[in-house]
C-alpha cells in the first residue's frame, strides 16, 4: 500500500528517497511518487482555498471598521490573504495543477478548505479574536511547513509566515484596546473568545489516532509534527496570552499539569467537527456561493481581457 514501504527501484525513486532522507527539497521537475504529487496538490490547493474563503469573514467588517486606522489594517490584512492564496496557487501550479481547475473544484464543493471559516463574525471583536486565535493556530501549523519537503510550498510558507506575523499581533492589539474600553466592549471580547476557542483547536485536525494520512505525510516530510502535538503547543502558548488579556478560555478542564509541564484541556466535540467538515457548518453554503458568484460575475471581464490580448497580438503580428 504505502509508497515508503516499497524498496526504491528506478533512478528517480532512488533520487527522491535520497532527497527526503537528506532533508533536502523536492523541486517541481524532479521525479516524485504519484501519491506525493497528488497529496501535495491537494494540500496546497486546500490551503490556498482556505486563504481565499478566509477573506470573507473579516472582509465583511472592512467597510464597517470603527476607526480609519483599524479599517486600513483590516483591508491590508484581507488583501494579504488574497496574496497568500495566490502564492499557494502558484506553488500548486508548479506541479502541473491549473488554477482555473482548482477554483472550479472549490466552487463546486469538490475540494475542501479550512472549516473554521464557516463560522460567522458577529461583532468587531471577532476580527480581533480571529487574528489572535485563528491566525495564531494557523501560524503554529504553518511555521513547520516552512521546512516542508516540497520546495515551492516551503518557500511560499516562509513568505506567508513572515507576512502573517502582523496578522496575529494586530488582532491581539485590538483585543487589548477593547479590553481597556467599556464593559460592553469587554463582554464582546469574552463572547468572541468563547465562540472561537473550540473551532480554533479543531483547526489542527482530527486526533492522531484518527488521522489516516498523517503517517505518510510525516514519512514524506510534508508534515513535521502530529496534529495533537501542534494543538498542545497552541494551547500552551495561548493560555498566558488569555491571562494577559483578561479573558477566560471556555474550558472548565483547562489547567496546568505540573507533572507533564503542559496544560490539560477538555475533549473537543468531534461530532461537531465532522459535521462542519462535511459541509454542515453555519455558513458553508454561503461562503461557497459568494465565491461562485464572484467567479461567474467576473467571467465576462476575464473573457474580454483575453479577447483584447488576442486582438493586440494579432495587430502586432500583422503590423496593423
Amino acid at each position, binding site marked *: 500500500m504505502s509508497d515508503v514501504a516499497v524498496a526504491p527501484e528506478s533512478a528517480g525513486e532512488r533520487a527522491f528517497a535520497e532527497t527526503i532522507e537528506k532533508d533536502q527539497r523536492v523541486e517541481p521537475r524532479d521525479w516524485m511518487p504519484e501519491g506525493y504529487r497528488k497529496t501535495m496538490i491537494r494540500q496546497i490547493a486546500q490551503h490556498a482555498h482556505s486563504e481565499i474563503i478566509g477573506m470573507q469573514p473579516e472582509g465583511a467588517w472592512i467597510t464597517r471598521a470603527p476607526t480609519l486606522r483599524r479599517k486600513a489594517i483590516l483591508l491590508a490584512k484581507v488583501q494579504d490573504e488574497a496574496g497568500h492564496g495566490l502564492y499557494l496557487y502558484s506553488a500548486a501550479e508548479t506541479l502541473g495543477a491549473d488554477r482555473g481547475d482548482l477554483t472550479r473544484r472549490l466552487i463546486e464543493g469538490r475540494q475542501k478548505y479550512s472549516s473554521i471559516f464557516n463560522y460567522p463574525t458577529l461583532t468587531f471583536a471577532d476580527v480581533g479574536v480571529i487574528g489572535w486565535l485563528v491566525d495564531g493556530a494557523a501560524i503554529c501549523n504553518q511555521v513547520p511547513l516552512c521546512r516542508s519537503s516540497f520546495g515551492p510550498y516551503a518557500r511560499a510558507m516562509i513568505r506567508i509566515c513572515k507576512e502573517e506575523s502582523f496578522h496575529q499581533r494586530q488582532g491581539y492589539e485590538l483585543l487589548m484596546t477593547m479590553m481597556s474600553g467599556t464593559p460592553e466592549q469587554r463582554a464582546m471580547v469574552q463572547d468572541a473568545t468563547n465562540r472561537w476557542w473550540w473551532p480554533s483547536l479543531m483547526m489542527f485536525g482530527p486526533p492522531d489516532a484518527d488521522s489516516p494520512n498523517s503517517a505518510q505525510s510525516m514519512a514524506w516530510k510534508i508534515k513535521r509534527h502530529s496534529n495533537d502535538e501542534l494543538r498542545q503547543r497552541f494551547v500552551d502558548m495561548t493560555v498566558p496570552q488569555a491571562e494577559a488579556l483578561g479573558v477566560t478560555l471556555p474550558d472548565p478542564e483547562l489547567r496546568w499539569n505540573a507533572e507533564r509541564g503542559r496544560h490539560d484541556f477538555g475533549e473537543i466535540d468531534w461530532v461537531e467537527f465532522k459535521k462542519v467538515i462535511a459541509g454542515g457548518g453555519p455558513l458553508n453554503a454561503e461562503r461557497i456561493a459568494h465565491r461562485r458568484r464572484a467567479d461567474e460575475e467576473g467571467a465576462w471581464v*476575464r473573457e474580454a481581457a*483575453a479577447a483584447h490580448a*488576442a486582438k493586440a497580438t494579432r495587430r502586432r503580428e500583422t503590423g496593423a
Partner: protein
Amino acid sequence: MSEEIRHEWPLFEVFVRAKRGLNHVHVGSLRAADHEMALHHARDLYTRRNEGVSIWVVRSDDVVSSGPEDKDAFFAPSGDKVYRHPTYYSIPDSVPHI
C-alpha cells in the same frame, strides 16, 4: 480568422530586484491576460512591502529549463575543475595584495 480565444489567462513567472545592485530573483508566478497586466499584478502581488525596485515578467511557457535528468551531464563535469578557484593556488602569506 475565427481562431479559438483561450479564456483562461496564461501563467507568467515573476522576478523582482530587491534593491539596486542585486539580481532579479524569481519570486513566483501569477495569471494575466497580457504582459502589461502581468506587470501590474506582479507589482500588487509581490511588492506590497517595499520588496522591489524593478520587476520582470516572463510567460511561463517561454521559459526553457534544464531537467533533473540533465543534472549529471550539465553540472557534474565542472565538479573536478578545482583550478578555476583562487584558493587552489598556494601563495606565501608574505606576498601582499594577491
